[in-house]
């Protein structure tokens, strides 16, 4: 290959993960005059196959798309989707696609990946037997489970869908987890003696089996499947017969027994293939033909094909460098692996089986806890050669980059449970150590993101370096390095709430709940820290809080049910707005927002609001939340205004609180010709259920009556969309600074199930989110992301659902209108005086001008020019 001077044609066959990276890398380097055509057999943009399992939950193939889709619109790139290449003519330097079109190339890259390998078991072609490689495979598998379940709908006895996975490797276990997620049973059938026998030893396999069983997945090791049998009437797969005479009834089978390189084009073009397949390439990724390269899983490099994405990415970079005249060679493969199955921690790297001459094994096993950890060391008992972690893979992220290096201190310390026996020594990785192998990012690059590019948090570092953006297994380490570097730069990264509390909001929430405390004084006495005194004459002690911890604790106390927000000492904790239950405006007056559940309001209700606004001279506006805001109320007017509103059945809209705001709705089946459920009714029910619920940040919901989504529910923290069968619920949406679409949590729920699901979701958020963290940001931080949340609230994986349900039941039961309660309480009413020595005298500095038929605060210039409408105009006293 030579550097190009004028446009040259690069053809890439295969539109998978590695092809995508190749094009991305070429564009990043300005292409050097190359035009690239990618031929993809699949009908979609290259997607993240590694994250394929998440397609079960997301269901939106778009969420799997890799990189910036705009890349494919670049004029230097052409993507032919659904366009398999059928042949190569090396002499003419052309390829022929499935439509018979012939395309010339100057350079050709094969990136055709692998296909799932199905062993020749009789019956493996029956309906109901699937492989697990593409989005279409997953969609078909899911459809089958749904179909089996639907076929059972009229059965009198409810029988679960029975699934089996043949193959107990990484992929098989992931597939088994996916079957469970679909609500099917799963049995893993493994030919070898233990699970994941390619990566881990027998001891690890035993521990893993226990963990897998805990996930409700059955395991059958040393089992050869002899035959798959069909049901006589339906012809669908219905039973597995094993060599030992055992049988297993099934409704669906997933075959995950390995992959084979798709080297058919290479073979047909007479290019050499490896012993076990794959186009043979040298370290420059070139085949025997200098104009043909191969990358990714189809490439047989250093004598083998590698079924991991990171080495494929490295090959893509090599080819790009060569196309541009560079000297790059393949750096060798990091074959470390980590199982991506929620709640099952397994990782292995390096010489996991201690095959190196003189290697020593250091094992820590705790069968009761299902933990097995092993380090493989060289004969010096210090140099790290590899390791296996089952049940607790925490050390994996930091040990993996130390491969081949000497461990500091006692290696055994790395195997002890965290916090026990002093724990592992701190590892200081050299700058050159690879941290993210998917994206080939070193520790030095991550440090540079902080020191040179000014990144101040994990999200920024991810965006800047791409570390952690693929499989995510390196994230804990990326976070650790980022934190260390920020600390070194003097940037505060502790999750301490403020100078008064070392704890984060979530920790404080638990502490307050468990210690059963009910006042700020008790809490700061018990959990507060003593800051350094700012001056000699100041007392040393925990202090009296600040504008950060006080409202946070106010919110925690309110979430735990401690009576009216203005009762006793709680009143002193409330943020400015909560303290007077109205939102402060720029001139120090307030806005008044009565609740209008679901945006539904009677003509009489409208008249009341209109009359109140008129009587008190308030500016009115329809808000973005489907209700009416009245602006310009002075503090001393608030009780009078609210007395009128409460008398007519209105209540606080909590526009001021970190709490439920509105439940936006569309008109739904009540009037709309497309509506399939009563969206307004549901919105009203939800709004009345969650009104007044104090939370780490505001919460907004939306309910749409059909998939047209006129209520924009997917822009909300919780979005509900009606289906023919019930409701779909989406979570973690956001408008505001960082808009995000909510993602599907559960489908076709009955109204009752919907309420229970949202109850738990909101309570789990309230308990674990950080201060001022909306649900969208929380979903990014929370353990396990969307899947983790689903496991907690739908499958009760933490065993806390009863607790969450009880907490919400208490909220619903104890709700009272804050404003009504204040109007009935003379003591609380006193805080609404304008001046302590002249409680009804308006602030003399307020000044207004008329605009578009209403009044608004006068600007500084307008004040200077007078006359302005000053003070109390159009006022009524009750």
């Amino acid at each position, binding site marked *: 290959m030579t550097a190009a001077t004028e446009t040259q044609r690069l053809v890439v066959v295969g539109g998978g993960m590695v092809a995508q990276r190749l094009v991305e890398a070429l564009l990043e380097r300005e292409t050097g005059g190359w035009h690239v055509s990618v031929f993809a057999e699949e009908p979609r943009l290259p997607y993240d196959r590694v994250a394929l399992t998440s397609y079960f939950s997301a269901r939106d193939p778009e969420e799997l798309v890799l990189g910036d889709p705009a890349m494919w619109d670049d004029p230097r790139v052409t993507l032919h989707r659904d366009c398999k290449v059928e042949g190569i003519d090396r002499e003419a330097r052309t390829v022929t696609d499935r439509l018979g079109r012939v395309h010339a190339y100057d350079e050709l890259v094969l990136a055709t990946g692998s296909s799932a390998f199905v062993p020749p078991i009789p019956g493996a072609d029956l309906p109901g037997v699937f492989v697990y490689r593409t989005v279409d495979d997953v969609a078909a598998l899911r459809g089958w489970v749904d179909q089996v379940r639907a076929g059972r709908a009229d059965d009198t006895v409810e029988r679960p869908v029975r699934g089996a996975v043949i193959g107990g490797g990484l992929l098989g276990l992931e597939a088994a987890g996916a079957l469970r997620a679909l609500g099917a049973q799963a049995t893993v059938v493994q030919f070898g003696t233990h699970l994941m026998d390619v990566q881990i030893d027998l001891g690890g396999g035993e521990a893993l089996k226990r963990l897998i069983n805990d996930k409700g997945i059955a395991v059958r090791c040393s089992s050869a499947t002899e035959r798959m049998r069909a049901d006589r009437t339906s012809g669908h797969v219905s039973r597995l017969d094993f060599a030992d005479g055992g049988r297993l009834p099934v409704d669906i089978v997933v075959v995950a027994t390995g992959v084979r390189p798709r080297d058919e084009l290479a073979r047909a073009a007479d290019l050499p293939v490896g012993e076990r397949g794959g186009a043979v390439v040298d370290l420059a990724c070139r085949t025997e033909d200098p104009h043909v390269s191969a990358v990714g899983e189809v490439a047989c490099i250093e004598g083998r094909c590698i079924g991991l994405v990171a080495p494929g990415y490295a090959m893509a970079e090599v080819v790009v460098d060569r196309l541009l005249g560079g000297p790059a060679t393949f750096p060798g493969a990091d074959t470390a692996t980590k199982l991506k199955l929620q709640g099952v921690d397994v990782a292995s790297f390096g010489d996991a089986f201690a095959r190196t001459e003189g290697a020593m094994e250091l094992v820590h096993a705790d069968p009761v806890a299902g933990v097995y950890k092993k380090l493989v060391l060289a004969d010096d008992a210090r140099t790290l050669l590899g390791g296996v972690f089952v049940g607790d893979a925490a050390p994996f992220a930091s040990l993996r980059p130390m491969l081949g290096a000497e461990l500091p201190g006692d290696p055994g310390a790395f195997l002890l449970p965290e916090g026990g026996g002093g724990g592992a020594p701190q590892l200081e990785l050299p700058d050159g150590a690879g941290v993210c192998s998917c994206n080939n990012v070193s520790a030095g690059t991550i440090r540079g993101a902080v020191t040179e590019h000014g990144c101040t948090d994990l999200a920024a570092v991810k965006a800047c370096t791409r570390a952690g953006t693929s499989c995510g297994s390196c994230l804990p380490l990326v976070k650790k390095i980022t934190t260390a570097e920020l600390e070194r730069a003097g940037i505060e990264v502790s999750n301490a709430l403020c*100078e008064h509390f070392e704890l984060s909001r979530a920790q404080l929430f638990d502490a307050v709940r468990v210690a059963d405390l009910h006042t700020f004084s008790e809490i700061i006495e018990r959990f507060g820290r003593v800051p350094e005194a700012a001056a000699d004459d100041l007392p040393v002690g925990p*202090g009296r809080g600040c504008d950060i911890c006080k409202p946070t604790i106010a919110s925690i106390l309110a979430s735990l049910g401690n009576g009216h927000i203005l009762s006793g000492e709680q009143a*002193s904790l409330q943020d*400015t707005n909560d303290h007077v239950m109205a939102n402060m405006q720029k001139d120090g007056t307030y806005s008044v927002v009565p609740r209008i559940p679901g945006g539904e309001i009677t003509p009489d209700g409208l008249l009341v609001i209109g009359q109140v606004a008129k009587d008190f001279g308030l500016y009115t506006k329809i808000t973005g939340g489907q209700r009416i805001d009245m602006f310009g109320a002075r503090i001393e007017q608030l009780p009078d205004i609210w007395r009128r509103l409460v008398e007519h059945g209105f209540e606080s809209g909590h526009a001021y609180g970190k709490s439920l705001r509105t439940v936006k709705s569309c008109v739904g089946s009540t009037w709309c010709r497309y509506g399939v459920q009563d969206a307004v009714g549901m919105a009203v029910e939800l709004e009345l259920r969650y009104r007044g619920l104090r939370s780490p940040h505001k919460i907004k919901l939306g309910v749409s009556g059909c998939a047209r989504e006129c209520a924009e529910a997917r822009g909300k923290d919780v979005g509900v969309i009606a289906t023919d069968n019930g409701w779909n619920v989406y979570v973690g949406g956001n408008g505001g600074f960082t808009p995000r679409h909510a993602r599907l949590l559960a489908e076709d729920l009955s109204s009752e199930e919907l309420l229970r699901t949202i109850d738990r979701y909101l309570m789990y958020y309230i308990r674990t989110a950080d201060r001022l963290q909306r649900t969208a940001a929380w979903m990014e931080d929370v353990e396990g992301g969307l899947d983790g949340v689903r496991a907690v609230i739908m499958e009760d994986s933490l065993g806390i659902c009863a607790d969450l349900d009880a907490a919400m039941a208490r909220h619903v039961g104890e709700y009272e209108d804050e404003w009504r309660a204040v109007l009935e309480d003379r003591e609380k009413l006193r805080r609404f005086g304008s001046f*302590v020595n002249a409680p009804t005298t308006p602030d003399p500095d307020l000044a207004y001008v008329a605009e578009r038929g209403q009044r608004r605060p006068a600007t500084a210039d307008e004040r200077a020019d007078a006359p302005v409408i000053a003070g109390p105009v159009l006022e009524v006293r009750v």
Partner: protein
Amino acid sequence: MTTTADTTWVAVCPLADLAVERGAAALLGDVQVALFRLADGTVHAVQQLDPFSGANVMSRGIVGTRGGEPTVAGPMYKQVYSLRSGLCLDPVGYEPRPGHEPVLVTYPVDVRGGVVHVGAAR
């Protein structure tokens, strides 16, 4: 109104009218002040005008401490001020409105016979 050596004192309100760790505004002629009664029983008075928003709202801020120093946070944009000196300890990235300084005028306070008295500005 009483006058001691060099200060003119105005009786404003009974101490009992002030909530602990919460502010209240008072009108002294045409001057607006913000009074704060702290947990240790002391009362502090500063100007009611918020230099960063130009609105008369300081009394509605959250009371607290910084390294033991009693503070109030501006309710509009959350600047933190010392209640003893009136100095702005943390402008949180904002500039005061034109013609204003990042400091609050403080007033002497004397609680006599259960009544809060405020003196002329220091």
